């Protein structure tokens, strides 16, 4: 084909320019380390990259959320452990005080320590986290949750539990409300609470009792009355006698599936209440102990009263310690589920990073060898252009 001189130069020039532009593109790829310089280079990959990067950013946020939840749950766990230790000490003191040989002075000494322990427990319940938020206040984290009132220590927080998002479809509570931890402790043995009537004149002492037969148990408020020092009867809320019998100190008294034991010598007319268990807060438990320790003991009846109260308190504190352990178990299981979520997240992140790298990152070996090839091509084109453009018939005229 006939070629015009102008077109020959033009074509050669355009080829050179094109080679230069592909070379500069390769150079830019190498300099940035990115395979795609513009979304238009590979639209599908560009969209995928944006999605993967979003997923990574989201995952990083979930990791931060997890850290936050973990930090608070650890604080919660420590607080629960401390509360458990405090109650354990109270329990020891109760056991110590409940021996018959205690005189009033020793009891007063124990009472003052229990008082300190109560303050300690209150402190723990009002602990704050690093942000200055109360740990056990539900949603009302800026207000002190446990306050002293005329009627004792009251919970003024709420029952809210904050959840944090630690995975695309996974949320964990980052704590427990004060209600759940310190207030909602099952009272008595969990089914009923026993107490001696304050007007009792005998030395009868009632224990906390147990449910002997769960199926026969009819929840309700009952009163165990001694019609004489040797006979008893149990009446329900409607004063209907549901059981009666002859009293022997230390023998089991059973009615409606429940079993209680009275020891000592009750007088006729003495009564013990066996009422439905609701919940009881830990502070009032300790306050009960305190009150029992501070009560004067003048008569055997007084001693029986104190012994009954301390015995009930002991059962109660055991319940509270169990309760704290249960709550700690919940917290622990949350911590481990955070850890599992972190493992899953790490796996996913790795996969995403790998896919992202495949889509986005440059294969340097390939790019460098491509650049060399392009360099050779450009040099050859330049050289051949110079040679060819020198050829002219006019040189020979």
């Amino acid at each position, binding site marked *: *084909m006939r*070629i015009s001189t102008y077109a020959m130069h033009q074509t050669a020039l355009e080829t050179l320019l094109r080679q230069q532009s592909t070379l500069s593109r390769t150079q830019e790829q190498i300099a940035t380390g990115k395979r795609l310089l513009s*979304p*238009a280079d590979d639209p599908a990959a560009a969209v995928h990259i944006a999605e993967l990067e979003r997923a990574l950013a989201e995952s990083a946020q979930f990791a931060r*959320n997890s850290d936050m939840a973990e930090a608070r749950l650890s604080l919660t766990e420590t607080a629960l452990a401390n509360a458990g230790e405090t109650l354990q000490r109270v329990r020891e003191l109760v056991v110590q005080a409940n021996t018959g040989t205690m005189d009033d002075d020793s009891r007063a000494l124990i009472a003052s320590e229990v008082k300190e322990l109560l303050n300690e427990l209150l402190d723990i319940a009002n602990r704050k986290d690093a942000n200055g938020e109360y740990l056990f206040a539900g*949603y*009302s984290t800026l207000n002190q949750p446990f306050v002293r009132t005329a009627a004792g220590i009251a919970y003024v927080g709420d029952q809210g539990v904050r959840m944090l998002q630690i995975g695309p479809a996974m949320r964990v509570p980052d704590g427990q409300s004060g209600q759940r931890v310190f207030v909602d402790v099952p009272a008595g043995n969990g089914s009923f609470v026993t107490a001696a009537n304050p007007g009792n004149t005998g030395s009868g002492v009632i224990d906390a009792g147990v449910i002997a037969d769960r199926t026969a148990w009819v929840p309700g408020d009952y009163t165990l009355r001694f019609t004489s020092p040797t006979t008893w009867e149990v009446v329900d809320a409607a004063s209907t006698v549901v059981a009666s019998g002859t009293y022997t100190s230390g023998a089991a008294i059973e009615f409606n599936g429940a079993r209680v034991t009275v020891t000592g010598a009750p007088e006729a007319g003495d009564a013990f209440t066996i009422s439905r268990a609701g919940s009881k807060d830990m502070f009032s438990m300790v306050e009960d102990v305190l009150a029992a320790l501070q009560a004067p003991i003048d008569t055997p009846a007084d001693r029986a009263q104190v012994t009954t109260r301390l015995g009930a308190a002991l059962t109660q504190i055991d319940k509270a310690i169990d309760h704290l352990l249960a709550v700690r178990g919940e917290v622990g299981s949350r911590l481990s589920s955070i850890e599992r979520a972190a493992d899953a997240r790490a796996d996913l992140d790795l996969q995403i990073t790998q896919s992202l790298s495949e889509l986005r990152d440059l294969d340097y070996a390939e790019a460098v060898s491509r650049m060399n090839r392009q360099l050779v091509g450009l040099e050859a084109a330049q050289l051949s252009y110079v040679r060819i453009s020198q050829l002219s018939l006019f040189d020979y005229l």
Partner: protein
Amino acid sequence: MADLMSNSVSALLAFQRAIAVTGHNIANVNTPGYSRQRAEFISRGGQPSGDGYVGDGVRIATVRRLYDDLVAAQVRTTASSYRNLEIFASYAERLSNLLGDTDTGLTATLQKFVNAVHGVADAPTSIPARQVLLSEAESLRDRLQYMDARLRDLETQIESRIRSEATEITAIAKSIAQLNREIEAESVRTGQPPNDLLDQRDRLIDELSERLNVTVVPSGRAMVSVFVGTGQPLVLGAEAATLSTRPDVFDRTRSIMVIETENGASDITHALTGGSLGGLLAFRSELLDPARNAIGRIAVALTEVVNEQHRAGMDLTGALGGDFFGIGSVEVLARASNTGSASVTVTRSDISALTEHDYILRRTATGWDLRRADTGEAIALTGAGTAADPFVAEGLSIVVGGTAAAGDEFLIRPTRDAVRGFEVLIQNPEQIAAAAPIRTTADPGNLGTGTISAGVVTDRNHPQLLAPVTIEFLSPTTYSINGSGSYTYTPGAPIEVNGWRVEISGAPETGDRFTVGSNANGAGDNRNALLLADALRGPVLNGGTTSLDSAATRLTGNVATATRQAQAGRDAQKIVHDDNLATRDSLSGVNLDEEAANLLRFQQAYQAAAQMIQVASTLFDALLAATRR
């Protein structure tokens, strides 16, 4: 002898001309649009003699331009397509890079905002975390507005390029008409083709074809007519029309293309294709406008989703959440030539039904008619168009006031200008409503195992939303609300009161109480922040199938794909175009070696002809010498 002499002289003259033509070719080796010329030799008819015809030398019949109309037409067609795709691709690349930056793109910015919402959920009482959310909201606003501003910049650039293209096209058309006149006159006067004028005209037509598709038809003796669009005459022989821009009948800030002839002006915006002008118009209507609408729609949906959820929450001060973002309203543009007094108000009523299209609302003889602005597809309207019963279509509520004349039209752009009004309305970090407005409590004295859920707000506008409500169990299977009524209890079934919903499950006992009330002081509550984060990730667009970030990635993907296609088309067209150029150049281009050879050839011939005069002279001298004796 005289014959021999005149024979030689004719040859001398002819070769001189031929050398001149060669010289002209050499001189124009770098002239764009120049077609090489060739002196066409023709032998002069011989004189009859008894010995037969003896030739009488040579003459130049014409100086021919080596040019093929068919090849030229092909070059123009491909030049037009190539320029069209080149312009389209170059603008598309800019758009695609703007939208696609993975560090600053919409998807990344949106995710940062969602992360900041989680940050508030992690520590609802933390003012710094709330401040971060506000800053992220502001960067989201800045990002959207930056994108929108860049798109509007592009629009302005295209607008001014369209205007200058129109001016240039008109100037070229005038030059072509002028050349037509000169060429016609020269051809008539000399009977020979005015090659260099023809080249100039062809060159101008080439330039024109780079700006838009043209059809060239010969007319008169040597004139051509040029038609554009769907057959509108731009040049008719010696007459040229004017291609100009006029403000759009709806939006006076943008131009339409108008061709003005003696018969008046007509809008040919949609008929113009090919070339740089076609590329600009196509980019504007196919990529730029949809991209602005799409970004606007994302901003609208974002605003709606965030505001809706934010208003359902409670802030640190115990007040219900307000609007988080503000957004530009629906643009309604009346046609300049409307004769009625009608006014049209359009609001967005359903985000999930909202589209990325523009619409034209037209008053017909009997009612109103809604069509898509780009395709003209009819859209069904429900309602009466009154404030009480507005027209509803495509997620819009349309209220028509005043009196319209038949034929009056309104352009409705649901999302085009939304981003310009996009703003962050929350200024104070405490106003971020991270908490739910209500909280539920189980009475500590409850004896049963009943538990109450945290509660969900179903109607944030309920006047009694925050009023305390007590649910008390009258028996294990019935409950009263605020001391009245007796409702049957089903564990886990929703209980809806005062715009909220809770579920009680387990086995409550007689006398057990649950209370629901205001969450004032619930500073540590993050329920609404979590719901907000969920809502931001939820499918809210396209009938509840597309989330905000898939809408953003979809936009990036669409623009990138269109760019890729345009680039591929451009590269393919470039090859075809180069091929056609090579074909044309192989016929019309000057080759210096060829001209050098021609030069040698004609020089030698010239020298030979000169030698012939010498021969004639010698012969003559011989004859004279013979007769002198």
